[in-house]
């Protein structure tokens, strides 16, 4: 999809346990030697990237292709600020966590914690995603605060909890507890979902399919509810007219 492909990684072993590889497009700007020696966690062992992946380097631009099944590789694109990552297969947990800028495209599925506490940039998932998309990590006050996540398939539970800004768009269905404690930003669901907007203070959730409204929202007009009244919230839940 890009004119020039700058760094290509391909798994070369069957991962016995998951791998934690905090790879960002920044890596593509390093020398091949540095890339091969980049440290990743393989269970308790700190190993070289080159031990687990085939590495092909074709330039210095901040672009990476992850070619193959990365569903057992965690923390891809975590804290990335710019550049692009294309995952040709599926990706493991915490992909794009704390992301500030740039773009991640996932052709397969994404596991839990996609774009957690994301603050900028864009993530596109062609397949489905797991749970906790754009959420806050346990103990933190704010989830996604900026940026965009587009999911072409379905998403799991707990989407956009404590979200304060940015957009999450789900083309398929979402699970339960969408936008709990949300304060800002927008969640758009083209399919259906379960409970929405518990303790919502602000922001908007728009849903095309069916959903379960909690007994803490007041109907303002046809297809528009405001709440959660228990936190004197001004969050909007909107039914998208088809």
């Amino acid at each position, binding site marked *: 999809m890009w004119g020039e492909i700058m760094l290509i990684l391909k798994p070369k072993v069957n991962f016995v346990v998951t791998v934690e590889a905090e790879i960002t497009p920044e890596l593509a700007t390093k020398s091949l030697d540095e890339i091969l020696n980049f440290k990743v966690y393989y269970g308790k062992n700190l190993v070289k990237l080159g031990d687990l992946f085939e590495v092909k380097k074709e330039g210095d631009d901040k672009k990476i292709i992850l070619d193959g099944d990365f569903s057992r590789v965690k923390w891809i694109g975590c804290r990335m600020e710019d550049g692009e990552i294309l995952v040709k297969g599926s990706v493991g947990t915490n992909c794009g966590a704390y992301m500030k800028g740039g773009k991640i495209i996932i052709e397969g599925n994404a596991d839990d914690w996609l774009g957690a506490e994301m603050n900028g940039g864009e993530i596109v998932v062609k397949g489905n995603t797991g749970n906790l998309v754009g959420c806050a*990590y*346990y*103990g*933190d006050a704010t989830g996604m605060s900026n940026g965009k996540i587009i999911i072409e398939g379905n998403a799991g539970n707990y989407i956009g909890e404590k979200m304060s800004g940015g957009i999450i768009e789900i083309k398929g269905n979402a699970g339960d507890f969408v936008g709990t404690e949300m304060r800002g930003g927008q969640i758009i669901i083209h399919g259906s979902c379960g409970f929405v907007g518990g303790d919502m203070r602000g922001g908007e959730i728009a849903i095309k399919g069916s959903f379960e409204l909690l007994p803490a929202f007041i109907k303002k007009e046809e297809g528009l509810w405001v709440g959660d009244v228990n936190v004197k919230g001004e969050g909007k839940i909107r039914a998208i007219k088809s």
Partner: protein
Amino acid sequence: MAIHIKNGIVIDPKNKIKAEKMDLFIKDGKIVDEKAVKKEECQVIDATNKLVVAGGVDMHAHIAGSKINTGRTMRPEEMRVVRRVADTFRAAVGRVLLTAPAIGYEYAKMGYTVSFEAAQPPIGALHTHEELDAIPMIDKAALPVFGNWHLVFKFVEEKNIEKLKAFIAWAIERTKGFGVKAVNPGGVEAWMYGKNVRSLDDQVPGFNITPREIITSLIQATEELKLPHSVHLHCNNLGVPGNYQTTIETIKLASKFSNSKRQVLHVTHVQFNSYAGSSWRDAASGAAEIAKVVNSIDNVTIDMGQPIFGHATAMTGDAPFQFTLHRLTGAKWSNKDSEVEGGAGIVPLVYLPNNPVHALQWAIGLELGLLIDSNKVVLTTDYPNGGPFTEYPYVMAMLMSRKMREKELQKVSPYVQKATGLAAIDKEKTLEELIHMTRSLPAKILGLENKGHLGIGADADVAIYDLNPLDVDTSNEFEKVYKALKTAVYTIKGGEIIVKNGELVKEVWGRTYWVDARSKVDLEAVMPDIENYFQYYSIELQNYGVEESWIRMPERIVVG
């Protein structure tokens, strides 16, 4: 092995040594006379031009038991700060709330060798001791809480001091505790009905007694028992604007009593009880008034409860206050009503320099530290209520340098200028005073004769810092002072080198002190009352308490 600390500059206030170049000798865990060692067999530590002092003594921190542990559970965001990856030592994590290994390691690195858990829920005593036992490096003890215990209420109501004494002796033995702590006496019982007490003369719900009577009875009993430490009091009305008057009234309760060795009342984290004004909108400092009273009375000591800007977690036995704080901040809140003994609460908070109230609290702490006679005020942050204990060096440097205070005042809310007298205080305490406030004074207040000093026979707990007291200008070189005090060049605990150049070199396990005053009372006389009251407990009397053999390294201090 014996150790010879050579050419250090020693400050040892208890033994009236004011920055003297001298050698120290250590053998079998004690400070010994030069003649007691063979010099050629000693490990020599060259302390040339370095400050040599006794290990620090933290007399009031929350380091073990259900409160801090619930705090940890509540706050995974605190545990993400990695201080140490596991190697020959344990992994250590925590931002302000630390794991047990991290607590021991951080105290040791700072040159502190003793810390007291300041509020032990009696029925949870075994939990507190399990956690104390998990803290390496330091000596420790726990103060069980008495101020809302129904059996205390009963004996106070009956005005039966003999039974109260017997009960206290029984309870501190059962809890393997060190002394008598009281938290918001009567107020926590009121909280069981959703209320609090507001003055020393409010009636405690369900009992015909007042906080005043609880406090004076506890002091009388403690004094008659001649416990090493006095009553250790967290006053009523904590955290309420205008509370400084209650604090002053409370301090004055001590004037009826006297003790030739020590204070008869220690009032703790007084910063939280030094507010003038009628609401947070017009709150101001009551520190000067409190200082005046403390300075004029000979039998009361205090500790600061200094807030440090940044993260903290409020955790006290003052359950109604914790609920108020939760309402005020909207933060998450844990509460624990404990049988018929008391309660506790936990609320995370963060002290922000720009927040007028937080800046006020910060300034009040410093005012207390500056205005109160150095023989009566101990340095604490009421860890983790005011913030980390690891910032004691910041507080020390601030008390020694007006210049540093002026610099810091620039960064805080201007509200401090009108609501406190901090900016006008030109007092600069000396390094010797600060060594006293962090070593010899807390040891004296706690009645620990072998701690906080370097005289012959003292425990060989020594801290060596890269600071020459004969040379340093504490008024101007505050950055240097702060940095030097933050990390010890050497920490020696019980005669073993545990820290070198700020790095851990050996893991040791300290002692747990507890006080046994049973021989001074008629336990038989009080047992029927205790047995009768156990119908209101959810465990059997025979399963209540902690045996010495369950503790890693207990040390019994017998009274009488």
